[in-house]
């Protein structure tokens, strides 16, 4: 009976209910975009670190686990590598640079990452090959760089860096393309560590010793990560260590950015609950005499409440479905430079929370419908 009444009313008033579905669709669009943005921006900050083939990251002591503030000398590498249980150690060096593109196209700002070939930190290539020498004028670009520049394996890429007071240009050959490996919200270009030292921006003359930012440590047994986070600083002077999850959470701005976007998402959901709740409550107030009549002729409370719940749920589902479809359609047409990523997990959570805004918003109406007294609703005197 509840289903019958609910569907009949939805069909007859389909224009009105479609309107609220469209409002829910817009709220869905907003929530999913904020979720996608949170994923994309988060990914843009930490994608490389989250995928790195290591278990522990070693920093300079008192650097507050900030990669940019950490400076490690190569001489410390053997101190870490010789620890029992450490499988391999890879030094990592980070800076920013610019790729100069042909045909007058706008230069692309990138994260320039220096890695030691064959060591942790080097990225797996999908096309082409990995580095074979620490000094080769070669580059492995990540998928984002490839998409935005159109560069392919075998192409030459010119790196621009300010060294001292001069702009220097370094031609490199693209030998490989990896999957997405963004760092610091920029697409990444990986070069052998000694090549990095040569081409990176610097304020003064080339020094004799390359200085890295951090070491990536691969353990023989990943289950011992916590143990090594404690033991490495105890065995190696003036360093501190952390696991990967902490490392990327400590990336400057990451936590604040995610918190801001999460707050936006929650507020949008709250607005959704209020909008849906308001709509159905107005509907309910207009239907008081009708519901009074139904109860007067003997309709059960559960029939009346069931019809309301069903309507709210259906309208919400339709709205979320339209909103999700719109989101995916728009996202498919966004340029690559827009940092929006939809992962199954976070998208599913966003959709599940959206599906709840209807029933939660409609609770007030359901409660109201249960409390309608036929006598008062119909104006039959007492």
């Amino acid at each position, binding site marked *: 009976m509840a289903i019958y009444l609910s569907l009949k009313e939805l069909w007859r008033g389909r224009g009105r209910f479609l309107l609220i579905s469209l409002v829910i669709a817009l709220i869905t669009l907003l929530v999913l975009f904020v979720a996608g943005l949170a994923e994309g921006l988060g990914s843009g900050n930490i994608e490389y670190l989250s995928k790195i083939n290591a278990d522990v990251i070693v920093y300079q002591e008192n650097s507050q686990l900030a990669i940019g503030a950490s400076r490690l000398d190569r001489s410390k590498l053997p101190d870490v590598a010789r620890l029992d249980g450490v499988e391999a150690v890879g030094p990592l060096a980070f800076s920013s640079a610019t790729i100069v593109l042909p045909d007058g196209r706008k230069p692309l700002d990138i994260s320039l990452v220096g890695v030691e070939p064959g060591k942790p930190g080097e990225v797996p290539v999908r096309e082409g090959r990995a580095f074979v020498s620490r000094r080769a004028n070669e580059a492995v670009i990540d998928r984002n760089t490839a998409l935005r520049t159109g560069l392919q394996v075998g192409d030459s890429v010119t790196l621009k860096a300010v060294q001292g007071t001069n702009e220097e240009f370094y031609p490199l050959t693209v030998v490989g393309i990896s999957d997405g490996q963004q760092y610091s919200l920029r697409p990444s270009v990986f070069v052998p560590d000694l090549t990095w030292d040569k081409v990176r921006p610097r304020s003064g003359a080339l020094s004799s010793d390359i200085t890295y930012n951090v070491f990536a440590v691969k353990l023989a047994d990943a289950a011992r990560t916590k143990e090594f986070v404690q033991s490495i600083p105890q065995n190696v002077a003036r360093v501190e260590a952390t696991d990967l999850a902490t490392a990327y959470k400590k990336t400057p701005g990451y936590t604040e950015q995610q918190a801001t976007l999460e707050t936006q998402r929650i507020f949008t959901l709250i607005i959704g609950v209020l909008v849906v709740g308001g709509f159905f409550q107005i509907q309910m107030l207009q239907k008081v*005499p009708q519901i009074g*009549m139904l109860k*007067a002729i003997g309709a059960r409370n559960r029939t009346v409440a069931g019809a309301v719940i069903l309507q709210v749920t259906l309208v919400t589902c339709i709205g979320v479905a339209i909103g999700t479809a719109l989101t995916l359609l728009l996202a498919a047409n966004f340029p690559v430079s827009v940092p929006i990523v939809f992962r199954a997990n976070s998208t599913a959570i966003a959709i599940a929370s959206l599906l709840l805004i209807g029933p939660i918003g409609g609770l007030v109406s359901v409660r109201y419908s249960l409390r309608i007294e036929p006598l008062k609703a*119909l104006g039959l005197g007492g």
Partner: protein
Amino acid sequence: MTNALETQDVTKTYKIDHGVIHAVDGVSLSVKAGEFVALVGPSGSGKTTMLAMLAALLRPTSGGIFIDGHDLTTMDEGARAKFRREKIGFTFQANNLVPYLTAQENVELMLRLNDRLDRKGKDRAKELLDRLGLGERMKNLPSQLSGGQQQRVAIARALIHNPSLVLADEPTASLDTERAFQVVETFANLIHEQNRAGIMVTHDLRLTQYVDRVIQMRDGQVASIVDNHTEIEERVVKHADDHHLEGLKVLPMRSPALAM
């Protein structure tokens, strides 16, 4: 004939700041199956309160209400709703119909509520609507029907599930005179044909020409009863003048027809 409806000393009182109001004060009446009764009286006489109690929508403060031998006063809210659904048919002054159901669907609603809608029920709904002159309007929504047509659909809905008692609260309140007479005449015919007990609350004494008995209430009590067709015609209908038209709240109780 046995009594389809019987009330025993029914009272409804309300507490107010400085005392109590006796909306209904010790009313005992009975209606047989196949009998059509008009409940008349001025505003505040208690007739609508009485109707609400007969419809199991309002509990009396004291007294008994028996419909087909079932005592309404001993039922809980769920039982009363069930009783209304199965045994009582009701038409209201306004808001009779569900706006998003067609005329036929509105009539079938009572059968649906009772989980009794089948092929036979659908045919019966069509028959009733046809009988009420709405054969061409079955698929129309209430907004596409006139006030009189809506009332007739409400009558069909009130009768479709074979109730023991049929109640009508000012069924002609929003109708012009000609349609008012048509609706009440049809209502009366169906009550008699189907052997239901029917009670109609009305302000318009001219409509009492179609009833078998007129019960007049005043100040919460039964003031007079006229139960003979000739007497009704002579004492009530003929003396119903323009003051009795629907929409006005004053009934000239000074009319000799209804004097105690």
